[in-house]
Protein backbone atom coordinates (compact mmCIF):
# COMPACT_ATOMS: atom_id res chain seq x y z
CA UNK A 1 0.00 0.00 0.00
CA UNK A 2 1.20 3.51 -0.83
CA UNK A 3 1.81 5.76 2.11
CA UNK A 4 -0.58 8.64 2.63
CA UNK A 5 0.88 11.73 4.26
CA UNK A 6 -0.73 14.70 5.98
CA UNK A 7 0.06 18.32 5.35
CA UNK A 8 -1.41 21.72 6.05
CA UNK A 9 -1.73 24.33 3.31
CA UNK A 10 -2.49 28.00 3.64
CA UNK A 11 -5.34 28.43 1.17
CA UNK A 12 -5.87 32.20 1.12
CA UNK A 13 -5.68 32.43 4.88
CA UNK A 14 -7.55 29.21 5.64
CA UNK A 15 -5.35 26.57 7.22
CA UNK A 16 -6.31 23.52 5.19
CA UNK A 17 -5.68 19.93 6.16
CA UNK A 18 -4.71 17.68 3.23
CA UNK A 19 -4.05 13.97 2.76
CA UNK A 20 -1.78 13.17 -0.13
CA UNK A 21 0.00 10.16 -1.62
CA UNK A 22 1.15 8.33 -4.74
CA UNK A 23 3.63 9.45 -7.33
CA UNK A 24 2.22 8.67 -10.79
CA UNK A 25 1.83 11.28 -13.54
CA UNK A 26 -1.94 11.34 -13.15
CA UNK A 27 -4.09 12.08 -10.18
CA UNK A 28 -7.44 11.86 -8.47
CA UNK A 29 -8.74 14.55 -6.13
CA UNK A 30 -11.47 13.45 -3.72
CA UNK A 31 -14.05 15.93 -2.37
CA UNK A 32 -15.86 14.67 0.71
CA UNK A 33 -19.51 15.17 1.65
CA UNK A 34 -21.40 16.45 4.66
CA UNK A 35 -22.14 20.17 4.41
CA UNK A 36 -20.08 21.92 7.09
CA UNK A 37 -22.08 22.86 10.16
CA UNK A 38 -25.25 21.40 8.64
CA UNK A 39 -24.84 17.63 8.21
CA UNK A 40 -25.29 15.76 11.50
CA UNK A 41 -21.94 14.00 11.04
CA UNK A 42 -18.48 15.49 10.63
CA UNK A 43 -17.30 14.93 7.09
CA UNK A 44 -13.71 15.39 6.03
CA UNK A 45 -10.88 13.81 4.11
CA UNK A 46 -10.92 11.02 6.71
CA UNK A 47 -14.04 9.45 5.14
CA UNK A 48 -11.95 8.42 2.09
CA UNK A 49 -9.65 6.30 4.29
CA UNK A 50 -8.60 3.16 2.36
CA UNK A 51 -9.92 4.66 -0.89
CA UNK A 52 -6.83 6.85 -1.02
CA UNK A 53 -4.41 3.98 -0.55
CA UNK A 54 -6.18 1.90 -3.16
CA UNK A 55 -6.07 4.62 -5.82
CA UNK A 56 -2.51 5.61 -4.87
CA UNK A 57 -1.27 2.31 -6.29
CA UNK A 58 -1.17 3.89 -9.75
CA UNK A 59 -2.22 7.51 -9.26
CA UNK A 60 -1.40 10.53 -7.22
CA UNK A 61 -4.23 11.05 -4.78
CA UNK A 62 -5.30 13.98 -2.66
CA UNK A 63 -8.19 14.72 -0.34
CA UNK A 64 -8.65 17.77 1.85
CA UNK A 65 -10.97 18.95 4.57
CA UNK A 66 -13.37 21.57 3.26
CA UNK A 67 -13.91 24.82 5.14
CA UNK A 68 -15.23 23.97 8.62
CA UNK A 69 -14.57 20.23 8.21
CA UNK A 70 -11.93 17.98 9.78
CA UNK A 71 -8.87 19.99 10.72
CA UNK A 72 -9.50 22.89 8.30
CA UNK A 73 -10.43 26.24 9.74
CA UNK A 74 -13.51 28.41 9.23
CA UNK A 75 -13.25 31.40 6.96
CA UNK A 76 -12.02 34.70 8.32
CA UNK A 77 -15.31 36.65 8.08
CA UNK A 78 -16.76 34.15 10.52
CA UNK A 79 -20.30 34.26 9.12
CA UNK A 80 -22.24 31.61 7.25
CA UNK A 81 -20.74 30.22 4.05
CA UNK A 82 -22.02 29.52 0.56
CA UNK A 83 -21.22 27.00 -2.16
CA UNK A 84 -19.07 29.73 -3.74
CA UNK A 85 -16.92 29.87 -0.60
CA UNK A 86 -16.43 26.12 -0.71
CA UNK A 87 -15.74 26.23 -4.46
CA UNK A 88 -13.20 29.07 -4.27
CA UNK A 89 -11.43 27.30 -1.44
CA UNK A 90 -11.33 24.02 -3.39
CA UNK A 91 -9.98 25.83 -6.45
CA UNK A 92 -7.22 27.42 -4.37
CA UNK A 93 -6.29 24.02 -2.94
CA UNK A 94 -6.29 22.57 -6.46
CA UNK A 95 -3.84 25.37 -7.42
CA UNK A 96 -1.56 24.66 -4.51
CA UNK A 97 -1.53 20.91 -5.03
CA UNK A 98 -0.74 21.24 -8.74
CA UNK A 99 -2.13 17.80 -9.59
CA UNK A 100 -1.30 16.43 -13.07
CA UNK A 101 -4.03 14.91 -15.32
CA UNK A 102 -6.53 15.36 -12.54
CA UNK A 103 -9.82 13.47 -12.23
CA UNK A 104 -12.11 14.82 -9.53
CA UNK A 105 -14.51 12.68 -7.51
CA UNK A 106 -17.05 14.36 -5.26
CA UNK A 107 -19.47 12.80 -2.81
CA UNK A 108 -22.67 14.48 -1.58
CA UNK A 109 -21.98 18.25 -1.30
CA UNK A 110 -18.52 17.41 -2.67
CA UNK A 111 -20.26 16.34 -5.90
CA UNK A 112 -21.73 19.83 -6.23
CA UNK A 113 -18.28 21.34 -5.55
CA UNK A 114 -16.83 19.11 -8.29
CA UNK A 115 -19.48 20.50 -10.63
CA UNK A 116 -18.70 24.05 -9.46
CA UNK A 117 -15.01 23.47 -10.26
CA UNK A 118 -15.83 21.97 -13.66
CA UNK A 119 -17.88 25.08 -14.52
CA UNK A 120 -15.29 27.51 -13.22
CA UNK A 121 -12.03 25.90 -14.34
CA UNK A 122 -12.62 23.01 -16.74
CA UNK A 123 -9.06 23.24 -18.05
CA UNK A 124 -7.81 22.09 -14.65
CA UNK A 125 -9.29 18.59 -14.80
CA UNK A 126 -9.83 15.64 -17.12
CA UNK A 127 -13.20 14.57 -15.71
CA UNK A 128 -15.50 14.76 -12.73
CA UNK A 129 -17.48 12.01 -11.03
CA UNK A 130 -20.50 13.19 -9.09
CA UNK A 131 -21.48 10.60 -6.52
CA UNK A 132 -24.64 10.27 -4.42
CA UNK A 133 -25.15 14.01 -4.45
CA UNK A 134 -28.58 15.18 -3.44
CA UNK A 135 -27.48 18.80 -3.76
CA UNK A 136 -26.06 18.42 -7.31
CA UNK A 137 -29.21 16.81 -8.75
CA UNK A 138 -32.37 18.57 -9.96
CA UNK A 139 -35.02 18.36 -7.25
CA UNK A 140 -38.08 20.27 -8.47
CA UNK A 141 -40.45 20.98 -5.63
CA UNK A 142 -39.08 18.40 -3.30
CA UNK A 143 -40.78 16.46 -0.56
CA UNK A 144 -39.70 17.33 2.97
CA UNK A 145 -36.63 15.24 3.70
CA UNK A 146 -36.89 13.46 7.06
CA UNK A 147 -33.75 11.34 6.92
CA UNK A 148 -31.90 13.47 9.48
CA UNK A 149 -35.03 14.63 11.34
CA UNK A 150 -34.23 13.58 14.91
CA UNK A 151 -30.56 12.91 15.61
CA UNK A 152 -30.03 11.61 19.13
CA UNK A 153 -28.44 14.21 21.43
CA UNK A 154 -25.85 15.33 22.05
CA UNK A 155 -25.32 16.26 18.42
CA UNK A 156 -21.88 15.30 17.02
CA UNK A 157 -21.21 12.85 19.83
CA UNK A 158 -19.85 9.51 18.69
CA UNK A 159 -23.27 7.88 19.05
CA UNK A 160 -25.07 10.67 17.27
CA UNK A 161 -22.66 10.55 14.32
CA UNK A 162 -22.99 6.76 14.19
CA UNK A 163 -26.74 7.26 13.96
CA UNK A 164 -26.36 9.74 11.09
CA UNK A 165 -23.96 7.56 9.11
CA UNK A 166 -26.21 4.56 9.66
CA UNK A 167 -29.26 6.53 8.50
CA UNK A 168 -27.80 7.17 5.05
CA UNK A 169 -26.22 3.76 4.51
CA UNK A 170 -27.76 0.69 2.94
CA UNK A 171 -25.52 -1.57 5.04
CA UNK A 172 -23.51 -0.47 8.09
CA UNK A 173 -20.38 -2.59 7.59
CA UNK A 174 -18.36 0.46 6.51
CA UNK A 175 -19.06 2.37 9.74
CA UNK A 176 -15.88 1.19 11.39
CA UNK A 177 -14.37 2.22 14.74
CA UNK A 178 -11.68 4.05 12.73
CA UNK A 179 -14.32 6.09 10.90
CA UNK A 180 -16.10 6.92 14.14
CA UNK A 181 -12.80 7.84 15.81
CA UNK A 182 -12.04 10.27 12.98
CA UNK A 183 -15.54 11.76 12.98
CA UNK A 184 -15.42 12.15 16.75
CA UNK A 185 -12.00 13.81 16.59
CA UNK A 186 -13.26 16.17 13.88
CA UNK A 187 -16.15 17.24 16.11
CA UNK A 188 -13.66 18.74 18.55
CA UNK A 189 -11.73 20.79 15.97
CA UNK A 190 -11.99 24.59 16.24
CA UNK A 191 -12.90 25.06 12.56
CA UNK A 192 -15.70 22.52 12.83
CA UNK A 193 -17.08 24.14 15.98
CA UNK A 194 -16.92 27.59 14.42
CA UNK A 195 -18.80 26.23 11.41
CA UNK A 196 -21.48 24.61 13.52
CA UNK A 197 -22.00 27.88 15.33
CA UNK A 198 -22.08 29.92 12.13
CA UNK A 199 -24.53 27.58 10.37
CA UNK A 200 -26.83 26.84 13.32
CA UNK A 201 -29.56 29.38 12.60
CA UNK A 202 -32.37 28.82 10.11
CA UNK A 203 -31.22 32.02 8.36
CA UNK A 204 -27.69 30.68 7.88
CA UNK A 205 -29.01 27.43 6.45
CA UNK A 206 -31.38 29.25 4.11
CA UNK A 207 -28.42 31.41 3.01
CA UNK A 208 -26.41 28.27 2.21
CA UNK A 209 -29.32 26.44 0.53
CA UNK A 210 -29.99 29.45 -1.69
CA UNK A 211 -26.39 29.21 -2.87
CA UNK A 212 -26.93 25.54 -3.69
CA UNK A 213 -29.90 26.49 -5.88
CA UNK A 214 -27.92 29.26 -7.59
CA UNK A 215 -25.16 26.79 -8.42
CA UNK A 216 -27.73 24.31 -9.72
CA UNK A 217 -29.32 26.96 -11.93
CA UNK A 218 -25.93 27.86 -13.39
CA UNK A 219 -25.31 24.21 -14.22
CA UNK A 220 -28.71 23.76 -15.89
CA UNK A 221 -28.29 26.91 -17.96
CA UNK A 222 -24.75 25.99 -18.92
CA UNK A 223 -25.80 22.53 -20.06
CA UNK A 224 -28.57 24.08 -22.17
CA UNK A 225 -26.88 27.16 -23.64
CA UNK A 226 -23.26 25.98 -23.80
CA UNK A 227 -21.87 22.86 -22.23
CA UNK A 228 -20.03 21.49 -19.26
CA UNK A 229 -16.39 21.64 -20.29
CA UNK A 230 -15.29 18.22 -19.06
CA UNK A 231 -16.46 14.61 -19.33
CA UNK A 232 -18.47 13.57 -16.31
CA UNK A 233 -20.07 10.60 -14.72
CA UNK A 234 -22.86 10.25 -12.21
CA UNK A 235 -22.54 7.41 -9.68
CA UNK A 236 -25.56 6.59 -7.56
CA UNK A 237 -26.56 4.01 -4.96
CA UNK A 238 -29.94 2.45 -5.69
CA UNK A 239 -30.85 2.48 -1.98
CA UNK A 240 -29.58 5.93 -1.02
CA UNK A 241 -32.04 7.33 1.56
CA UNK A 242 -31.07 10.89 0.57
CA UNK A 243 -31.68 10.73 -3.19
CA UNK A 244 -33.29 8.39 -5.71
CA UNK A 245 -31.99 6.75 -8.90
CA UNK A 246 -34.37 9.03 -10.82
CA UNK A 247 -32.56 12.07 -9.38
CA UNK A 248 -29.20 10.70 -10.47
CA UNK A 249 -30.51 9.81 -13.92
CA UNK A 250 -32.04 13.27 -14.33
CA UNK A 251 -28.73 14.88 -13.39
CA UNK A 252 -26.98 12.69 -15.97
CA UNK A 253 -29.50 13.54 -18.67
CA UNK A 254 -29.48 17.24 -17.88
CA UNK A 255 -25.72 17.77 -17.93
CA UNK A 256 -25.53 15.24 -20.76
CA UNK A 257 -27.65 17.37 -23.08
CA UNK A 258 -24.49 19.01 -24.36
CA UNK A 259 -21.56 17.09 -22.89
CA UNK A 260 -21.41 13.84 -24.87
CA UNK A 261 -18.71 12.09 -22.87
CA UNK A 262 -20.70 10.98 -19.88
CA UNK A 263 -21.78 7.87 -18.03
CA UNK A 264 -24.33 7.02 -15.38
CA UNK A 265 -23.77 4.18 -12.94
CA UNK A 266 -26.32 2.71 -10.56
CA UNK A 267 -25.20 0.21 -7.91
CA UNK A 268 -27.60 -2.20 -6.26
CA UNK A 269 -27.86 -2.41 -2.46
CA UNK A 270 -25.91 0.74 -1.98
CA UNK A 271 -26.59 3.84 0.09
CA UNK A 272 -24.98 7.28 0.15
CA UNK A 273 -21.43 6.20 1.01
CA UNK A 274 -20.94 4.42 -2.33
CA UNK A 275 -17.14 4.41 -2.05
CA UNK A 276 -17.17 2.92 1.45
CA UNK A 277 -20.09 0.55 1.03
CA UNK A 278 -18.89 -0.85 -2.30
CA UNK A 279 -15.23 0.15 -2.66
CA UNK A 280 -14.35 -2.32 -5.46
CA UNK A 281 -17.23 -1.30 -7.67
CA UNK A 282 -16.56 2.37 -7.01
CA UNK A 283 -12.87 2.10 -7.84
CA UNK A 284 -13.61 0.06 -10.94
CA UNK A 285 -15.98 2.58 -12.55
CA UNK A 286 -13.81 5.59 -11.69
CA UNK A 287 -10.65 4.00 -13.06
CA UNK A 288 -12.40 2.51 -16.10
CA UNK A 289 -13.78 5.97 -16.98
CA UNK A 290 -10.35 7.55 -16.56
CA UNK A 291 -8.57 4.83 -18.56
CA UNK A 292 -11.29 4.61 -21.19
CA UNK A 293 -11.14 8.37 -21.81
CA UNK A 294 -7.35 8.25 -22.03
CA UNK A 295 -7.50 5.37 -24.52
CA UNK A 296 -10.05 7.01 -26.82
CA UNK A 297 -8.36 8.37 -29.97
CA UNK A 298 -8.73 12.12 -30.28
CA UNK A 299 -10.79 11.72 -33.48
CA UNK A 300 -13.41 9.94 -31.39
CA UNK A 301 -13.45 12.53 -28.62
CA UNK A 302 -16.68 14.04 -29.88
CA UNK A 303 -16.34 16.70 -27.21
Amino acid at each position, binding site marked *: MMKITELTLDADGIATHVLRGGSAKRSVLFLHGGSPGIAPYCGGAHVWAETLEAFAADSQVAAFDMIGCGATGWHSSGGPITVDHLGEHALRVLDLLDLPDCHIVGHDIGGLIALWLAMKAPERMRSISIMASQSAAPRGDWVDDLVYLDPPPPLYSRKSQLWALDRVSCAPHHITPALLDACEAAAGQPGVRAGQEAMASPEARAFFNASVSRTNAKAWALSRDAKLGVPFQVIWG*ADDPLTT*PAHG*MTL*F*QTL*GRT*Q*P*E*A*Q*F*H*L*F*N*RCGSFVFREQP*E*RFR*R*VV*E*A*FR*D*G*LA*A*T*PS*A*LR*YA
Partner: protein
Amino acid sequence: MEEIRVETATEPRMRMPLRKRVDGVDTVYHEAGEGETIVFIYGGNFGSPDAASSAHIWDLNFFPLSERFRVVAFDKLGQGYTGNPTRDEDYTMAAVVRHAAAFIKTLDAPGVHLVGHSRGGFAATRIALEYPDLVKSLSIVCSGTLSPTISPNEIALAGNPHKPYSRESSRWVYEGYVHDPRSVTEDWVDRSYEVTNRPEVKKTVRKMVTEGLAHRYFLPELAKQKRETLQWLKEGRLQRPVEIIWGANDKTVSSQGAFEVFNMIGPHQRHVEISMFNHCGHFPYREHPDRFNHLLSRFVDDVSARG
Protein backbone atom coordinates in the same frame (compact mmCIF):
# COMPACT_ATOMS: atom_id res chain seq x y z
CA MET B 1 -21.20 17.93 -39.81
CA GLU B 2 -17.46 17.66 -39.46
CA GLU B 3 -16.12 14.58 -41.19
CA ILE B 4 -14.37 12.23 -38.81
CA ARG B 5 -13.01 8.90 -39.90
CA VAL B 6 -13.79 6.40 -37.23
CA GLU B 7 -11.88 3.52 -38.77
CA THR B 8 -9.24 1.99 -36.57
CA ALA B 9 -7.58 0.39 -39.55
CA THR B 10 -4.43 -0.60 -37.71
CA GLU B 11 -6.35 -3.28 -35.83
CA PRO B 12 -6.59 -6.82 -37.12
CA ARG B 13 -10.03 -7.51 -38.50
CA MET B 14 -11.06 -10.95 -37.27
CA ARG B 15 -10.12 -12.51 -40.59
CA MET B 16 -9.22 -15.92 -39.18
CA PRO B 17 -12.52 -17.68 -38.50
CA LEU B 18 -12.46 -21.09 -36.83
CA ARG B 19 -15.20 -23.65 -37.22
CA LYS B 20 -16.59 -26.68 -35.45
CA ARG B 21 -19.67 -28.89 -35.58
CA VAL B 22 -22.06 -28.04 -32.76
CA ASP B 23 -25.22 -30.15 -32.53
CA GLY B 24 -24.76 -31.02 -36.19
CA VAL B 25 -24.44 -27.38 -37.26
CA ASP B 26 -21.32 -25.97 -38.89
CA THR B 27 -20.46 -23.20 -36.42
CA VAL B 28 -18.08 -20.34 -37.15
CA TYR B 29 -16.28 -18.51 -34.38
CA HIS B 30 -13.25 -16.40 -33.51
CA GLU B 31 -11.03 -16.92 -30.53
CA ALA B 32 -7.97 -15.09 -29.18
CA GLY B 33 -6.09 -14.55 -25.93
CA GLU B 34 -5.76 -16.34 -22.64
CA GLY B 35 -7.31 -16.01 -19.20
CA GLU B 36 -10.91 -15.74 -18.08
CA THR B 37 -13.20 -16.56 -21.01
CA ILE B 38 -15.46 -13.82 -22.37
CA VAL B 39 -18.11 -14.94 -24.88
CA PHE B 40 -19.90 -12.35 -27.00
CA ILE B 41 -23.42 -12.93 -28.31
CA TYR B 42 -24.61 -10.35 -30.81
CA GLY B 43 -28.18 -9.31 -31.54
CA GLY B 44 -30.76 -9.69 -34.27
CA ASN B 45 -32.13 -12.92 -35.64
CA PHE B 46 -32.11 -14.93 -38.82
CA GLY B 47 -34.27 -13.80 -41.71
CA SER B 48 -33.40 -10.13 -42.09
CA PRO B 49 -32.80 -8.92 -45.67
CA ASP B 50 -31.89 -5.35 -44.65
CA ALA B 51 -28.85 -5.80 -42.42
CA ALA B 52 -27.22 -8.71 -40.65
CA SER B 53 -24.79 -9.01 -37.78
CA SER B 54 -21.96 -11.46 -37.49
CA ALA B 55 -19.22 -12.03 -34.94
CA HIS B 56 -17.29 -9.21 -36.62
CA ILE B 57 -19.59 -6.71 -34.99
CA TRP B 58 -17.34 -7.12 -31.92
CA ASP B 59 -14.14 -6.25 -33.78
CA LEU B 60 -13.51 -3.07 -31.76
CA ASN B 61 -13.66 -5.13 -28.55
CA PHE B 62 -12.29 -8.51 -29.53
CA PHE B 63 -8.59 -7.66 -29.90
CA PRO B 64 -8.20 -5.08 -27.12
CA LEU B 65 -9.84 -7.48 -24.65
CA SER B 66 -7.87 -10.47 -25.95
CA GLU B 67 -4.74 -8.88 -24.47
CA ARG B 68 -6.00 -9.85 -21.02
CA PHE B 69 -8.72 -12.45 -21.58
CA ARG B 70 -9.62 -15.41 -23.71
CA VAL B 71 -12.18 -13.82 -26.00
CA VAL B 72 -14.67 -15.78 -28.10
CA ALA B 73 -17.16 -14.41 -30.62
CA PHE B 74 -19.29 -16.91 -32.52
CA ASP B 75 -22.02 -16.82 -35.13
CA LYS B 76 -25.39 -17.86 -33.80
CA LEU B 77 -27.55 -20.56 -35.35
CA GLY B 78 -28.81 -19.29 -38.72
CA GLN B 79 -26.77 -16.07 -38.60
CA GLY B 80 -23.42 -14.83 -39.86
CA TYR B 81 -21.40 -17.69 -41.29
CA THR B 82 -22.88 -20.47 -39.15
CA GLY B 83 -25.29 -23.02 -40.62
CA ASN B 84 -29.06 -22.81 -40.49
CA PRO B 85 -31.59 -24.72 -38.42
CA THR B 86 -32.32 -28.03 -40.13
CA ARG B 87 -35.99 -28.13 -39.13
CA ASP B 88 -38.61 -25.42 -39.57
CA GLU B 89 -39.63 -25.67 -35.93
CA ASP B 90 -36.07 -24.74 -34.91
CA TYR B 91 -36.46 -21.22 -36.26
CA THR B 92 -36.87 -20.19 -32.63
CA MET B 93 -34.95 -18.37 -29.90
CA ALA B 94 -35.04 -21.62 -27.91
CA ALA B 95 -33.05 -23.38 -30.64
CA VAL B 96 -30.61 -20.46 -30.82
CA VAL B 97 -30.10 -20.70 -27.06
CA ARG B 98 -29.60 -24.50 -27.18
CA HIS B 99 -27.04 -24.14 -29.94
CA ALA B 100 -25.22 -21.30 -28.14
CA ALA B 101 -25.10 -23.29 -24.90
CA ALA B 102 -23.81 -26.34 -26.75
CA PHE B 103 -21.13 -24.18 -28.36
CA ILE B 104 -20.09 -22.74 -24.98
CA LYS B 105 -19.80 -26.28 -23.59
CA THR B 106 -17.25 -27.08 -26.28
CA LEU B 107 -15.02 -24.25 -25.04
CA ASP B 108 -14.20 -26.35 -22.00
CA ALA B 109 -13.96 -23.31 -19.73
CA PRO B 110 -14.75 -23.36 -16.01
CA GLY B 111 -17.56 -20.87 -16.58
CA VAL B 112 -17.60 -17.97 -19.03
CA HIS B 113 -18.41 -14.27 -18.84
CA LEU B 114 -21.32 -13.80 -21.21
CA VAL B 115 -21.83 -10.50 -22.99
CA GLY B 116 -25.11 -10.39 -24.87
CA HIS B 117 -26.38 -7.53 -26.99
CA SER B 118 -30.01 -6.82 -27.87
CA ARG B 119 -31.65 -10.17 -28.74
CA GLY B 120 -28.28 -11.67 -27.78
CA GLY B 121 -28.80 -10.15 -24.31
CA PHE B 122 -31.97 -12.17 -24.05
CA ALA B 123 -30.19 -15.31 -25.26
CA ALA B 124 -27.35 -14.75 -22.80
CA THR B 125 -29.82 -14.32 -19.95
CA ARG B 126 -31.58 -17.55 -20.93
CA ILE B 127 -28.23 -19.36 -20.92
CA ALA B 128 -27.45 -17.99 -17.45
CA LEU B 129 -30.88 -19.22 -16.29
CA GLU B 130 -30.94 -22.60 -18.02
CA TYR B 131 -27.25 -23.50 -17.82
CA PRO B 132 -25.94 -21.61 -14.76
CA ASP B 133 -22.91 -23.89 -14.50
CA LEU B 134 -21.65 -22.49 -17.80
CA VAL B 135 -21.79 -18.88 -16.66
CA LYS B 136 -19.69 -16.78 -14.27
CA SER B 137 -21.17 -13.39 -15.05
CA LEU B 138 -23.66 -11.77 -17.38
CA SER B 139 -23.41 -8.44 -19.19
CA ILE B 140 -26.67 -7.40 -20.79
CA VAL B 141 -26.27 -4.69 -23.43
CA CYS B 142 -29.27 -2.68 -24.71
CA SER B 143 -31.75 -5.52 -24.73
CA GLY B 144 -35.26 -4.51 -25.62
CA THR B 145 -36.03 -8.20 -25.91
CA LEU B 146 -35.36 -8.56 -22.19
CA SER B 147 -37.13 -5.32 -21.18
CA PRO B 148 -40.74 -5.53 -20.08
CA THR B 149 -41.29 -2.06 -21.48
CA ILE B 150 -42.26 -1.42 -25.12
CA SER B 151 -39.18 -1.38 -27.23
CA PRO B 152 -39.59 1.06 -30.12
CA ASN B 153 -37.27 -0.86 -32.45
CA GLU B 154 -40.02 -1.55 -34.98
CA ILE B 155 -40.98 2.12 -35.03
CA ALA B 156 -37.47 3.53 -35.42
CA LEU B 157 -36.57 1.11 -38.21
CA ALA B 158 -39.86 0.88 -40.10
CA GLY B 159 -39.85 1.56 -43.84
CA ASN B 160 -36.27 1.11 -44.93
CA PRO B 161 -36.20 3.16 -48.16
CA HIS B 162 -33.40 1.08 -49.70
CA LYS B 163 -33.43 -2.15 -51.65
CA PRO B 164 -33.08 -5.28 -49.52
CA TYR B 165 -29.61 -6.86 -49.59
CA SER B 166 -28.01 -3.55 -50.51
CA ARG B 167 -25.13 -1.78 -48.85
CA GLU B 168 -27.41 1.26 -48.45
CA SER B 169 -30.05 -0.71 -46.56
CA SER B 170 -27.44 -1.91 -44.07
CA ARG B 171 -26.11 1.60 -43.59
CA TRP B 172 -29.63 2.96 -43.11
CA VAL B 173 -30.39 0.37 -40.44
CA TYR B 174 -27.20 0.95 -38.47
CA GLU B 175 -27.48 4.72 -38.75
CA GLY B 176 -30.95 4.32 -37.28
CA TYR B 177 -29.51 2.35 -34.40
CA VAL B 178 -26.58 4.57 -33.41
CA HIS B 179 -26.58 8.06 -31.95
CA ASP B 180 -23.94 9.55 -34.19
CA PRO B 181 -23.94 8.24 -37.78
CA ARG B 182 -20.18 8.75 -37.93
CA SER B 183 -19.79 5.62 -35.85
CA VAL B 184 -21.18 3.50 -38.70
CA THR B 185 -17.94 2.55 -40.42
CA GLU B 186 -17.51 1.34 -43.99
CA ASP B 187 -16.08 -1.84 -42.59
CA TRP B 188 -19.22 -2.47 -40.57
CA VAL B 189 -21.47 -1.83 -43.59
CA ASP B 190 -19.31 -4.01 -45.85
CA ARG B 191 -19.51 -6.94 -43.50
CA SER B 192 -23.27 -6.64 -43.08
CA TYR B 193 -23.64 -6.44 -46.87
CA GLU B 194 -21.53 -9.54 -47.31
CA VAL B 195 -23.49 -11.50 -44.72
CA THR B 196 -26.95 -10.53 -45.96
CA ASN B 197 -25.95 -11.71 -49.44
CA ARG B 198 -24.79 -15.15 -48.37
CA PRO B 199 -27.09 -17.76 -49.99
CA GLU B 200 -27.57 -19.45 -46.62
CA VAL B 201 -28.67 -16.19 -45.06
CA LYS B 202 -31.03 -15.47 -47.95
CA LYS B 203 -32.51 -18.88 -47.31
CA THR B 204 -33.38 -17.84 -43.75
CA VAL B 205 -35.19 -14.83 -45.20
CA ARG B 206 -37.25 -17.16 -47.41
CA LYS B 207 -38.00 -19.33 -44.39
CA MET B 208 -38.90 -16.50 -42.05
CA VAL B 209 -40.68 -14.17 -44.46
CA THR B 210 -41.87 -16.09 -47.54
CA GLU B 211 -42.72 -19.32 -45.75
CA GLY B 212 -43.98 -17.40 -42.73
CA LEU B 213 -41.91 -19.02 -39.99
CA ALA B 214 -41.45 -15.65 -38.28
CA HIS B 215 -45.10 -15.54 -37.31
CA ARG B 216 -45.61 -19.30 -37.10
CA TYR B 217 -42.66 -20.08 -34.82
CA PHE B 218 -40.14 -17.38 -34.05
CA LEU B 219 -42.26 -14.53 -32.69
CA PRO B 220 -44.92 -16.55 -30.79
CA GLU B 221 -42.26 -18.82 -29.26
CA LEU B 222 -40.15 -15.79 -28.31
CA ALA B 223 -43.21 -14.20 -26.68
CA LYS B 224 -43.81 -17.36 -24.62
CA GLN B 225 -40.18 -17.56 -23.64
CA LYS B 226 -40.12 -13.87 -22.73
CA ARG B 227 -43.08 -14.33 -20.38
CA GLU B 228 -41.28 -17.22 -18.72
CA THR B 229 -37.95 -15.36 -18.57
CA LEU B 230 -39.39 -12.25 -16.92
CA GLN B 231 -41.15 -14.51 -14.42
CA TRP B 232 -37.90 -16.34 -13.70
CA LEU B 233 -36.04 -13.06 -13.16
CA LYS B 234 -38.70 -11.90 -10.71
CA GLU B 235 -38.42 -15.22 -8.88
CA GLY B 236 -34.71 -14.68 -8.33
CA ARG B 237 -33.48 -17.52 -10.51
CA LEU B 238 -30.67 -15.43 -12.01
CA GLN B 239 -27.83 -16.07 -9.59
CA ARG B 240 -24.77 -14.66 -11.28
CA PRO B 241 -23.35 -11.10 -11.13
CA VAL B 242 -25.00 -8.89 -13.74
CA GLU B 243 -24.09 -5.61 -15.36
CA ILE B 244 -26.65 -3.82 -17.47
CA ILE B 245 -25.05 -1.62 -20.11
CA TRP B 246 -27.26 0.80 -22.03
CA GLY B 247 -27.11 3.66 -24.51
CA ALA B 248 -28.94 6.71 -23.16
CA ASN B 249 -30.01 7.78 -26.66
CA ASP B 250 -30.99 4.40 -28.06
CA LYS B 251 -33.94 5.07 -30.37
CA THR B 252 -34.82 1.39 -30.44
CA VAL B 253 -34.78 0.56 -26.70
CA SER B 254 -35.83 3.09 -24.06
CA SER B 255 -33.45 3.82 -21.18
CA GLN B 256 -36.33 2.93 -18.88
CA GLY B 257 -35.72 -0.66 -19.98
CA ALA B 258 -32.38 -0.70 -18.13
CA PHE B 259 -34.12 0.25 -14.88
CA GLU B 260 -36.86 -2.33 -15.38
CA VAL B 261 -34.33 -5.11 -15.88
CA PHE B 262 -32.42 -3.83 -12.83
CA ASN B 263 -35.60 -3.77 -10.75
CA MET B 264 -36.46 -7.38 -11.63
CA ILE B 265 -33.03 -8.72 -10.73
CA GLY B 266 -32.07 -6.35 -7.90
CA PRO B 267 -34.28 -7.69 -5.10
CA HIS B 268 -32.62 -11.11 -5.39
CA GLN B 269 -29.11 -10.35 -6.53
CA ARG B 270 -26.74 -7.99 -4.73
CA HIS B 271 -24.36 -7.92 -7.66
CA VAL B 272 -26.27 -5.98 -10.28
CA GLU B 273 -25.51 -2.54 -11.65
CA ILE B 274 -26.40 -0.23 -14.51
CA SER B 275 -23.84 1.54 -16.67
CA MET B 276 -25.43 3.99 -19.08
CA PHE B 277 -23.46 5.71 -21.86
CA ASN B 278 -24.39 9.19 -22.99
CA HIS B 279 -24.36 10.21 -26.65
CA CYS B 280 -24.94 6.57 -27.39
CA GLY B 281 -27.51 4.56 -29.28
CA HIS B 282 -27.95 0.81 -29.57
CA PHE B 283 -24.26 -0.12 -29.94
CA PRO B 284 -22.26 1.15 -26.92
CA TYR B 285 -19.47 -1.33 -27.71
CA ARG B 286 -19.00 0.23 -31.15
CA GLU B 287 -19.98 3.82 -30.34
CA HIS B 288 -17.69 4.13 -27.28
CA PRO B 289 -15.42 1.10 -27.60
CA ASP B 290 -12.57 2.21 -25.34
CA ARG B 291 -14.74 3.13 -22.39
CA PHE B 292 -16.85 0.01 -22.98
CA ASN B 293 -13.78 -2.23 -23.05
CA HIS B 294 -12.33 -0.77 -19.87
CA LEU B 295 -15.63 -1.06 -18.06
CA LEU B 296 -16.18 -4.65 -19.17
CA SER B 297 -12.66 -5.80 -18.36
CA ARG B 298 -12.82 -4.31 -14.87
CA PHE B 299 -16.20 -5.99 -14.30
CA VAL B 300 -14.78 -9.35 -15.34
CA ASP B 301 -11.74 -8.78 -13.10
CA ASP B 302 -14.00 -7.96 -10.19
CA VAL B 303 -16.19 -11.04 -10.64
CA SER B 304 -13.13 -13.27 -11.09
CA ALA B 305 -11.50 -11.87 -7.94
CA ARG B 306 -14.57 -12.88 -5.97
CA GLY B 307 -14.08 -16.44 -7.24
